[in-house]
C-alpha cells in the first residue's frame, strides 16, 4: 500500500486545502516548515490567522478560488506577474533579495459542493532572483550599449571634422588660394609623376609656360584687386580650354604652367597653344570696363627638351622669353626659339 501522505509531505511543493471562506482543512509539511508552524496549529484555522494579506492580495485569492470552483478547473497565479499571494517570509528558510517567497500558485477544485479547493504553492524565488539578475544585467548592457553608441557617434563626428580639416590643409598646401589652381608643390608632384610614368612608357608630355602680357601695367593702372579678378578669370579660361587630365598651375604672379600629357606629335602643341591664346584673348568685363588681356607661351617637350623638372621649366621659360621678344600674344616651342 502506497503511503500518499508520506509522498505529499516529502515533495517540494506547498499543498493547502481550504474552502471559499479560507478555512484550512489540510496543509502538508512543506507549508508548515516554510511558515515555521506546527501542523496542529494550522488545521481548522483561517488563513487570515496565519498571514497578513493586503486587501488586493486577499481579493485576488478569493477571486481565484471562485474561478476554480465555478469553472471546475485550475486557476493560476504566477510569480512573474504578481510575485506572491501568501506573504511567506523568505528569511524563515533562506536568504533572498526578495522579502517574501515568490510563488507560482495553482488552485484546483477539491470538493465543489463544499466549496473546497487545493492550493499548490511552487517556490519560484530562485528563478525570480535569476530573472531580476538577468534584467539588471540586460539593463546594464543596454546602458553600456547606449554609451558605446554615443561614443561611436562622437568619434565619427570627430573623424569627419578631422577629414575636413585634413582636406582643408591639403588644399592650402597644394592649391593656389586666389585662383584655386594647383600651386608649385602640386605642380612639382604631378610633373614628377608624369616623368616617372612616361619614362617607362616612352610617351611625351608638354610643359606650357604662360605669362600674361603687360600685366604689371594693368595692376599699376587699375589696381591689384582688378588684377586679382583678371587672374581668377584667366584661371577659369585655362581650365575650360584644357582637359581634366591636364594640370593647370599658377606658378607665381601672372605666370601659369600647364602640363599636357599624351603628346604624340610636336605639332599638337601648336594647336593647344593657339587654343589657349584665343581663350585668354576673349574680352573680360570687370567694373564696366572691357579689358583685353593677352598671353605669351613658351613650350618644352618631355623628353626632347629635358628629362627633369628644372630643365623642362627652364627651357619653356627660354621659349617664353623668345615669344615675348617677338611681340607677345604668341607662343614658341623650345627648339623653335633656339633656331
Amino acid at each position, binding site marked *: 500500500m502506497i503511503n500518499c501522505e508520506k509522498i505529499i509531505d516529502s515533495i517540494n511543493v506547498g499543498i493547502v486545502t481550504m474552502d471559499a471562506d479560507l478555512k484550512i482543512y489540510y496543509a502538508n509539511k512543506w507549508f508548515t516548515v516554510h511558515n515555521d508552524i506546527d501542523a496542529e496549529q494550522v488545521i481548522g484555522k483561517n488563513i487570515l490567522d496565519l498571514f497578513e494579506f493586503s486587501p*488586493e492580495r486577499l481579493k485576488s485569492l478569493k477571486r481565484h478560488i471562485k*474561478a476554480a470552483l465555478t469553472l471546475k478547473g485550475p486557476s*493560476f497565479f504566477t510569480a512573474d506577474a504578481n510575485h506572491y499571494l501568501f506573504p511567506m517570509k523568505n528569511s524563515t528558510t533562506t536568504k533572498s533579495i526578495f522579502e517574501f517567497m515568490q510563488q507560482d500558485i495553482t488552485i484546483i477544485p477539491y470538493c465543489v459542493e463544499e466549496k473546497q479547493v487545493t492550493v499548490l504553492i511552487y517556490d519560484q524565488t530562485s528563478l525570480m532572483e535569476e530573472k531580476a539578475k538577468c534584467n539588471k544585467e540586460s539593463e546594464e548592457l543596454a546602458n553600456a550599449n547606449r554609451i558605446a553608441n554615443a561614443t561611436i557617434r562622437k568619434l565619427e563626428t570627430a573623424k569627419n571634422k578631422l577629414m575636413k580639416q585634413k582636406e582643408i590643409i591639403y588644399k592650402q598646401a597644394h592649391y593656389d588660394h586666389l585662383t584655386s589652381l594647383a600651386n608649385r608643390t602640386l605642380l612639382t608632384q604631378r610633373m614628377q609623376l608624369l616623368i616617372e610614368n612616361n619614362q617607362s612608357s616612352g610617351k611625351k608630355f608638354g610643359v606650357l609656360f604662360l605669362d600674361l602680357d603687360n600685366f604689371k601695367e594693368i595692376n599699376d593702372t587699375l589696381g591689384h584687386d582688378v588684377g586679382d579678378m583678371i587672374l581668377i578669370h584667366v584661371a577659369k579660361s585655362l581650365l575650360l580650354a584644357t582637359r581634366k587630365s591636364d594640370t593647370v598651375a599658377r606658378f607665381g604672379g601672372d605666370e601659369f604652367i600647364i602640363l599636357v600629357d599624351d603628346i604624340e606629335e610636336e605639332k599638337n602643341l601648336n594647336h593647344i597653344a593657339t587654343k589657349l591664346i584665343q581663350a585668354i584673348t576673349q574680352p573680360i568685363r570687370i567694373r564696366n570696363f572691357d579689358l583685353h588681356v593677352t598671353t605669351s607661351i613658351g613650350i618644352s617637350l618631355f623628353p626632347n627638351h629635358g628629362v627633369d623638372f628644372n630643365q623642362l621649366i627652364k627651357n619653356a621659360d627660354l621659349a617664353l622669353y623668345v615669344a615675348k621678344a617677338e611681340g607677345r600674344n604668341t607662343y614658341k616651342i623650345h627648339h623653335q626659339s633656339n633656331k
Partner: protein
Amino acid sequence: MTTPYFNPQQEDILKELINVSFGLSASLIGDMLDNHAKLHIPDISNIAIHNLDDKIIEVLEEGYEFYLTKQRFLGSFNGEVLFVFNSYSARAFCDLLLKQEMSDEGDIKSSILELTNIITSACIGKFCEIIHGETIFKVPSIEKREISEMDKYDKIEGYDNVIVIKTALDIEKENILGHMFILLNNEMLDHLKHTIDKI
C-alpha cells in the same frame, strides 16, 4: 486528412459551443468586476500556423505594444492557447478589475492572466467535454511584446492550425477587445471536427 477549414455548419456549431463556454466566463468575470459583463464572439476563423504572426499583426491594427499570454494544455485533447490584447484593452481591464488609481505592469499582467485563465478554462473545458477528452493545463505565461520586433521572437512549433476567436468583452462603457488563438495539430483539429459533425 480533411480540409483544415471549418465548413459553415461546423463553424456555426463551434460558435455555439464557444458562446456557451463564454456565457459561463462572462458571469464569472461579471462577479469579479462587480458589474455586468457580456462576452461575445464577433468573428471566428481558421488559419494555418505559419500565418499566425501576420494574423497577430493584423488584429492589433495600429497598436505598437501588446500583451501575449500562452498556456499549453496536455492530455487526450492537447494544444496551446494564446491571447493577444493591445495595451489599451489590457490597461482598461486592469482598471476595471483592480479599481485602483495607479496600476503597474505587474497589475496589468496579473489581471490579464486572470481573465484569460477563465476564458481558456471554460472554452477548452467545453471542447474536452464534447470530445470526451481529458486535459491538464500548464501554468500560463504572459509577456509584453512589440509589433516591430515580431521577427525576433521565438516561433511556436508543433502545431498545424490555429482557430482565431475575436473576443469582445463589454463592461459598462468599455469594450475590451482581445483575440484568442487555439493552436492545434492536424490530428486534434480532425478530432474536433469529427466530433462537431456528430453533434
